[in-house]
């Protein structure tokens, strides 16, 4: 099975994010950049499917020059090759979905697996938009993925329980937290990754409309919550909740 895994570069989730004073971005000094954690789960799932069924795992990223680092990390985890779509302008989710759809049309994967959301803009859109653009089934928030020939069954994490849906490949799956535990890149993996193919393509050469219809005008720090006080005992805690906060 040929699997395409879109990958995004994001600040490490443990990084404290500060909005720049001009409101036009976040401070990036001292930011460690990583693969979006849900995309890491997607890479892991793709590798496991390949290990069971054979096939190929192809990574794709749409971004600036530095994003190649994350593609190399994914190759070190075990992906076979990577496609780097170089782009330096602001894109919205629709434009990214169109770019990925173009890559999918050229590459003809059986399956696209990606993170359910990127932890920077928290939009949770591209997988679904990509599925619609391709006219493929989608299974978002996947916690279990199984195959019987070309038929795929996915358990999804939804409100109030687990939902199971099924469809024929090709399809787009987005990963939730419990799908798997991603592996670390091994030292031999890192060595091998240096020699793997990483093909660069300019986004504006794809013939895709890149103009964003959603624009971020400004960013602002959220209102800060006042920290309260410590209480000395459980009895005092329950008392203040009852008499002062009046919530119990």
């Amino acid at each position, binding site marked *: 099975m040929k699997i395409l895994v879109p990958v995004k570069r994001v600040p490490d989730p443990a990084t404290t994010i500060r909005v720049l004073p001009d409101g036009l971005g976040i401070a990036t000094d001292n930011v460690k950049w990583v693969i979006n954690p*849900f995309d890491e789960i997607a890479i892991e799932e793709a590798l496991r499917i390949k290990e069971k069924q054979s096939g190929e795992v192809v990574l794709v990223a749409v971004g600036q020059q530095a994003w190649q680092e994350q593609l190399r990390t994914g190759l070190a985890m075990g992906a076979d090759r990577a496609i780097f779509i170089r782009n330096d302008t602001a894109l919205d989710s629709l434009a990214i979905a169109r770019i990925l759809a173009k890559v999918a049309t050229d590459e003809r994967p059986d399956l696209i697996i990606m993170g359910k959301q990127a932890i920077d803009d928290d939009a949770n859109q591209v997988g679904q938009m990509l599925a619609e653009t391709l006219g493929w089934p*989608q299974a978002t928030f996947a916690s279990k993925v199984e195959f019987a020939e070309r038929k795929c069954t996915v358990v*999804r*994490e939804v409100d109030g*329980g687990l939902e199971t849906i099924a469809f024929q490949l090709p399809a787009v799956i987005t990963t939730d937290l419990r799908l798997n535990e991603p592996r670390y890149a091994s030292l031999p993996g890192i060595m091998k990754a240096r020699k793997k193919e990483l093909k660069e393509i300019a986004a504006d050469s794809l013939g895709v409309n890149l103009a964003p219809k959603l*624009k*971020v005008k400004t960013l602002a720090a959220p209102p800060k*919550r006042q920290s*309260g006080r410590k209480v000395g005992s459980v009895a005092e805690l329950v008392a203040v909740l009852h008499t002062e906060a009046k*919530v119990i």
Partner: protein
Amino acid sequence: MGDVLVLAEQQEGRFPKTTLVAVHAGLELAAKRGGKCTAVVLGENPDAAAGEIAKYGVAKAIALSHAALKNYLADAYAHALAALVKKTGTEFVLATATAVGKDLMPRLAARLDAPMASEITAINDDGTFIRPTYAGNAMATVELDGPVKVLTVRGTAFDAAKAGDAAAPVEKVAAELDASALKMEFVSFNATKSDRPQLTEARIVVSGGRGLKSGDNFKTVLEPLVDEMGAAMGASRAAVDAGFVPNDLQVGQTGKVVAPELYVAVGISGAIQHLAGMKDSKIIVAINKDEEAPIFSVSDFGLVADLFKAVPEMVEEVKKLKHA
């Protein structure tokens, strides 16, 4: 221009708070943009439910029916809704960011070639919207450009619409669906069994973290407190990651966002991604043995204590209070 179509999600004929929040946000948006707010219920036979949502202040309710809409599936719902949007010429399509809203609305946006803003928390007078990014650490003001715009709203950021005495008219529409283009099949739904209130609706939420140390301890230590307080139970991502509890209890950036009157965090350190899901709660209580834990920086009342002692004690104290 300015018309708003609200997706009214039903759960077996009843409307959860998240739906009423969408209606409220839709009414606010329509008022600000000088349009009308219409609610739409999709299903095999949604007429009765549409009649119900028609009481919540909307100008009209549409019952959009088709046999293929019996169970929610992204492709069928997106096709049916997109055809309706094209027919009615609405400017905004809005839903709450529930599991269905998150799954469906981007697909709908792509089908309509429309921009989409996820989980907006405010509607500005100038036509822009505010939405949280970076786990709520940067609030973005966004502008959407196009004849149709798709939005999901954060369930905690708007009030719930209230039912009035009069009901708006209900229009029955047969969905335009090409069943041969639909490729997804519903297999089953496995509900998490619980008599407790839902996380996104509860007045009180009691959440546990990695400090609970095991799934068993959630049952034997935390659950008595949850039930004594009549609360919904939540969990941190760390507790879900460790396999202590199912993912639908997860509160945080990548789980559910809650804002109850009282949020009690037990054995939760307060990672950025957890705070993103609960920091708008009215009163926050933290119980943690590490006095340096970041959770204390957002809590109104903090108790530095061993949770395995403090929680059973709290159960007794709450009991006493009830019988006082």
